[in-house]
């Protein structure tokens, strides 16, 4: 899990990271898919998690009281991987170059609009839609990046925020003919794509005829597992995105991006143009956001302007920092964590709390419910906020650093024995 030493990490973690750095063995064997053995292992772990997510996320039997903590249903699993892609892309910009974009949701939204227009006009097949989303988001991020990267630090953040809010406002009002304004866009039975129209009602996206909503269910005793086509397509995209992210992190380009974060003056005097590198990172991360936006439309064929609202941009920042900015796994963890809380913790209500604390005497039960209640249901934002503060203060390297510390502690105990 140690992908990169973090400047604020404690010494032990840093040493562990340095010891395992890929450069330590420059002439190592060929590895798999151009990855070192360590990176290949990480890739394998993520692949296993994605493939077996329907099992892993459904650990509790349907009939048990804990079934509400199961997250293995298609809609939520799709969200896990799509936001994972979004955060992976964001991390290439923010984690490596340190440029904090506060408007990345704009690229997600633009990707979504592009994908739905591709479905309305060309075909309900998801592949052209997703490709179209990536291209359009890439072009839009080129324009936004070219202008915003004239400044750095807080001014850069504000410029990107302004662009995103502008996009939101335009999509909401002026551009209604293209964006459907407040109601957004859906695929209707009046739409006539070039290749095959929707059969009836609201059109569903498909991959060569197989609908995204198609699922196979597997019942094992009290457990019910759902395998959804849409999820596996999004999952494949996540694996591709993760793989590309590893390659970028380990490439000369990746070193240049970290150099941008470290010292632009030295870069200039070393004959390099930092802005070109930053702009490339910006466009790459914009394209990742476009991919996520396109996948959202593929899973659920509708889009509205709220997808570009500033809170959506803020969410990806929080995901990346919570998981661990500048690490490979961090953004995926952060995205999963936040989406889990948003969908699971928010569903716990007062009745469920009463059930949990039913074993306490009556008075105590009410007190406990009153104490816990603000942190659950609609109060999940409060829990998230507190967690975020704790992580930023005590684990600046995010959840990944937490994992590294625990691993380091185990390793130390082992050597002592």
């Amino acid at each position, binding site marked *: 899990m140690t992908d990169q030493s973090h400047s604020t990490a404690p010494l032990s973690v840093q040493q562990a990271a340095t010891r395992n750095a890929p450069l330590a063995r420059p002439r190592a064997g060929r590895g798999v898919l151009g990855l070192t053995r360590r990176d290949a292992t990480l890739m394998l772990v993520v692949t296993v998690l994605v493939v077996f997510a329907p099992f892993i996320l459904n650990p509790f039997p349907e009939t048990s009281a804990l079934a509400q903590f199961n997250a293995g249903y298609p809609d939520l699993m799709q969200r896990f991987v799509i936001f994972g892609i979004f955060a992976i892309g964001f991390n290439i910009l923010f984690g490596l170059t340190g440029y904090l974009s506060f408007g990345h949701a704009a690229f997600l939204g633009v990707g979504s609009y592009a994908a739905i227009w591709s479905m309305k006009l060309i075909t309900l097949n998801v592949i052209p839609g997703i490709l179209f989303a990536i291209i359009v988001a890439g072009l839009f991020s080129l324009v936004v990046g070219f202008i915003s990267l004239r400044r750095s630090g807080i001014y850069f953040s504000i410029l990107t925020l302004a662009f995103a809010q502008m996009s939101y406002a335009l999509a909401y009002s002026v551009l209604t003919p293209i964006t459907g304004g407040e109601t957004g866009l859906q695929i209707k039975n009046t739409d006539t794509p070039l290749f095959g129209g929707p059969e009836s009602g609201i059109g569903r996206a498909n991959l060569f005829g197989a609908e995204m909503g198609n699922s196979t269910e597997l019942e094992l005793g009290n457990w019910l597992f759902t395998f959804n086509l849409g999820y596996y397509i999004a999952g494949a995209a996540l694996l591709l995105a993760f793989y590309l992210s590893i390659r970028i992190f380990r490439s000369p380009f990746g070193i240049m991006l970290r150099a941008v*974060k*470290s010292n632009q003056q030295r*870069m200039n005097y070393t*004959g390099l143009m930092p802005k070109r590198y930053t702009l490339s990172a910006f466009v790459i991360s914009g394209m990742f956001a476009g991919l996520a936006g396109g996948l959202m439309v593929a899973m659920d064929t509708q889009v509205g302007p709220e997808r570009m609202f500033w809170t959506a941009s803020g969410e990806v920042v929080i995901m990346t920092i919570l998981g661990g900015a500048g690490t490979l796994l961090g953004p995926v963890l952060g995205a999963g964590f936040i989406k889990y809380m948003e969908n699971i913790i928010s569903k716990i209500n007062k009745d469920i709390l009463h059930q949990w604390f039913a074993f306490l005497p009556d008075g105590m039960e009410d007190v406990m419910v009153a104490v816990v209640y603000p942190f659950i249901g609609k109060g999940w934002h409060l829990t998230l906020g507190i967690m975020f503060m704790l992580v930023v203060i005590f684990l600046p390297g995010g959840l990944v650093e937490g994992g590294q510390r625990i691993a380091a502690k185990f390793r130390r105990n082992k050597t002592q024995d």
Partner: protein
Amino acid sequence: MAILSVKGVNKRFGGLQALGDVNLDVAENTCHAIIGPNGAGKSTLLNVLVGKLIPDSGSVVFDGQSVLGRKPHEINQMGISRVFQTPEIFADLTVMENMLIPCFAKRDGAFRLHAFEAVRRESDMIERAEAMLDEVNMLDKREMTASSMSRGDKRRLEMAMCLVQEPRLLLLDEPTAGMARADTENTIELLKTIRRDRGLTMAIIEHDMNVVFSLAERITVLAQGTPLVEDTPENIKGHPKVREAYLGEAQV
């Protein structure tokens, strides 16, 4: 034969004439020192040479080409490397990564989207970086984070980063400023070795006369933005004008 030739350079900051009609020739394969009291315009001159400042008038020609109006990265690609007063390195990166960046810049130019090649497969670049680290006795520190090293090691690393690009001219801005005695001696030794083994042309700005006289083969004295004298170190030592500009001030 002058590799760098400065002619009639003027630079004014508001009412202050920072550089007034500066003429300076740095001959190939020499170490040329530029000395002068505080505010003499040494740093302004250096910033003009690397493209950070554009002079009001005059010309700066490096190897037959004008450097004026070019950006710092273009001037570096022409073959001028600069060592800063406080070492400018990539503090968050490892020593090896610090070394690889100038190697890539030399090979690939100002920008290349090499996002899918693996660094560990760049064996030519790694070998080159290792050879250079070996030359400055830092090979054992290759996996250290640059920020965790001593000032002297940071200076060595910065010089190694400049040298691995095989520049035609190395500019040094007070390379021993703020250093401990031992680090200063080490840096002088390193510079002497580089000068001797590589025959590299150097232009050095320095306050410490000990450093200047142990390295320089030619010295230009600047005072109030104008060159006072240019001569060999032996002649500069006893020059009355220099004593006036330097010692006179020191006695006040």
